[in-house]
């Protein structure tokens, strides 16, 4: 399995080296990389030249086993959005610059646009749709409601997933620590003040529910 662990640094730096290595290993051509699943078979000769590839895979998404036909070069965000109907994971940039596609892999945040679906087999994928349990909002979601967070909210699913990941690592972050841990997500509306209020409230709610 490819190791596509992503690394975030204080200033939101992000390495895609391993992702790109993964794409190359999967044999996707430059012209096709980043685009959608294929139906036409137009590139079939090209792909078959890469060697036999099992496309029918089983993913564990939000606690469910999902069988899905995935080309090797397809990203997780594309599989979630276009094959599994999980459109809560947003595509803001396709290139690991904005974090709108953030999902959890085994509880750790990853950019869905920058990880290949074939590399997450056997791992637990959690998306924004998987946070509620029995109709009850996750503490982070409840915190958003309590604080009236987000404006256009296109970044909200990504930020929400980052907050869930953050709290599992640090249940009581300071405002400053929260900002650092959420620096991989971009909000063009600039609603950062309310986002940090939400993070603080989410930590409080998580602790009281625990």
């Amino acid at each position, binding site marked *: 399995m490819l190791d596509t662990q992503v690394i975030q640094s204080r200033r939101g730096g992000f390495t895609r080296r391993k992702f790109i290595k993964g794409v190359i290993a999967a044999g996707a051509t430059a012209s096709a990389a980043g*685009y959608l699943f294929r139906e*036409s078979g137009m590139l079939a000769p090209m792909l078959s030249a890469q060697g036999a590839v099992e496309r029918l895979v089983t993913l564990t998404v939000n606690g469910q086993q999902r069988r899905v036909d995935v080309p090797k070069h397809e990203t997780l965000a594309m599989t979630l959005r276009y094959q599994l109907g999980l459109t809560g994971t947003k595509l*803001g940039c396709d290139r690991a610059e904005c974090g709108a596609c953030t999902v959890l892999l085994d509880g750790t945040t990853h950019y869905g646009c920058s990880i290949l679906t074939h590399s997450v087999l056997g791992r637990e994928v959690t998306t924004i749709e998987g946070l509620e349990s029995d109709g009850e909002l996750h503490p982070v979601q409840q915190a958003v409601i309590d604080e009236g967070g*987000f404006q256009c909210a296109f970044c909200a699913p990504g930020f929400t997933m980052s907050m869930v990941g953050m709290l599992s690592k640090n249940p009581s972050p300071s405002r400053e620590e929260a900002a650092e841990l959420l620096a991989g997500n971009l909000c*063009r*509306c600039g609603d*950062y003040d309310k986002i940090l209020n939400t993070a603080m409230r989410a930590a409080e709610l998580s602790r009281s529910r625990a």
Partner: protein
Amino acid sequence: MAENVIGTDISPPDLRAKITGRARYAEDFRAEGMVFAKLLLSPMPHARVRSVDTSRAEAMEGVLGILRASELPQQEQGIGEAALTDEPKYEGEPILAVAAVDETTAAAAVEAIRVDFEQLPFVLDPLESLREGGPDARLDGNVGGRGEATTLKWPNSVFDEAGPDRLPMGEPATEWTIGDVDAAFDEAAVIVEETIVHQSVTHHPMEPRSCMAYWQNGKLFLHGSTQSTERTRGSVARMAGVEADDVVFIGEYCGGGFGSKISGVPSMAVPAVLSRKIGRPVMLRITRYEENYIGRARAGFQGWARIGFRGDGRMTALDLYIVQDGGPYGRASDFSTAGTVATAIYQPENMRFQGVPVYTNTPPRSAQRAPGGAQIVAMLEPLVDKAARELGVDRLEIRKINAPGHDGWLGPNQGPFTSAYVREALDLGGELFGWEEKSQLSGQRNGTKVTGVGMGLSPFTAGSTGRDGLLVIRPDGKLYVHQGIGNLGTHSIADTARPAADVLDLAWDDVVIVWGDTSKHLPFSTVQAGSQTTHAHTRANHAAATALVGLLQELAASELGGSPGDYRVSEGRVFRAGNRAAGLSFAQAAERAMAMGGRFSGEVVPEDLNDATKAAVAGLAGEGLIAAARDNYPQAGAVFTWVATFAQIELDVETGEVEIVDLASSTDCGTVMHPRSLAGQTNGGVFQGIGMAKSQRWVFDPKWGIPFTKRFYTARPPGILDVPLSPRFAAVNEPDPHTPVGAKGIGEPPVGAGEAAYACAVADAMGGLCLCRTPLTSDMILAELEGRPRPYGLLDTHV
């Protein structure tokens, strides 16, 4: 009494959908048989398509159709822009589109198409185009006119006289004067004069302008991302070449627009027309890379300002010249708005404004949050600081001296404002920030860091009148507020419904907002631009709710006897004054209205409603007690909001890096509708302004006319670590007397306030040295601090 909802914090009713993933934005919709389109983008900044060979693409398995510019319905020609073109006027302009069963195939087909281009002259710098013999961005001229391009060239002498560091100022396209500027300069105690440059900035909302369309029974269904809803339908209809009645526009959520998605965007024509051509639903997924090209941008300025002051700090003369970089289409009015906005900051006793909007072969411009306002505020405020230092007047004080009061005036016609609590906002912000103490910290050095303190005052238009409200009480007893406005993220979709709840004295839980789909019978609205919405639609819904109270009273009187005036409306009932039991519940009133018909249930409507509202009411007639009303409340004067922002920064003299230590903003935006959202809007706008002042830029290859700054990482908007952890905010909260609810808009003015506060604070940290340009990147600051020659010319753009 139901709790008054105006002025309290609520959780927006659509928020749960937004944070559970159930909110569907344009790219989240699917349709049976949906296929994908990709665009072929021009590789050149200006060219003519001689021929196109699509044979290889058409032979590919899975390719379903190709759309050329000539197949789009002919809209107004001239300076307008179409979704596709055979004469691309900027690198990245879409030339054709391919539909295929999947996006990979569509992209491969685009690459298999051969286009023969004839290169045409191009220009990136407006001043180059104004030179004799200089290139024009368009074949029909280089300067924006009314509906057509004109040609304007300045003699070489104009450029020679100005030299390399001063704006050449030849014949302007627009000019106006108040008083006698030259005489006022003769008597001025202090005069400051600078050449100024403001960059162009791409909007880059988080959601790119993806769009999905299909046709059913001759009707176009289009899922798009726009700021407005009711007002988008007409522009979609024009793009598709059909009547508005044959368009259903669905836009329940919009992932940000900031002026780039006001009421439809040109690229929507591609899925609209292509889906009809191939008989399949078409999704046009716009990537961030494409958004950089077609996603709109703020117009850039090259300008010059000369400002004269009396000894007491009063601005007696303002002479302003602006050359606008307006991209290749339309007529961005930023430059002329800038002149008007300047009057709303300083009320100069004498003023001259001159400007020229020049076309360039760079991505198209549109309004961007405070178009023209943000640029001029950020350019002039540091100059006022410079004068204040020379005059020995406090920088907050000089703004108070010049700010308009209620007797203030706006623009060349010097018309009145509806209200102007500007000095109150300045005092409030100064106190919140601690200006008196903090301004003493100017220049204080701590290791490698120098403290700078600055402020900016930013006005912008904030309202309009004459829109319609549409309310329905259904037999379930709830109040349905039909909103023609869009859900662009400002929370105004909910907040403008609050006056209806308050007039009816109804609990907020009993209010249902209907929005986001033109088949849901939406009334005529303003476009969601120019910060009009809160003002315009609190008025419209107030008018409709007042009409609804009248209908409820009439209904009760006819049912229970007495005269309408004997009845009160409160907490979901209409009842005889003093006796809650003697009356009807809203549910009963709705049933009664349906039985009575006529003007109670929408069969008869007021004559002065807009046709769109009449059609909406006709679609609802008979479904409950229906009130629709036009906003006929009188108003005299321009509706303006002011924001003041105060910033404390630390400039690292070894790296040129700037950190914002503290930030506080205050506003006069009339009555506060929703405190938490208001603070969010203000802080967000301030941050957007800081992004422009600090880092967001365009850089082009001058030889080929191709941009280098195409993605977030090369022109990054502020992230969470670029702004202070806890910005502070306060509002004057005095109602505007010319509107029943008292509320004015807030969207636009914070941008200029944040940008100016940052620019002034950086100048302050540099001992008052104004670079007079944005963005103030670290390398520019460092070159100044170290006394190295500037790595750019004073008038250079895209650096």
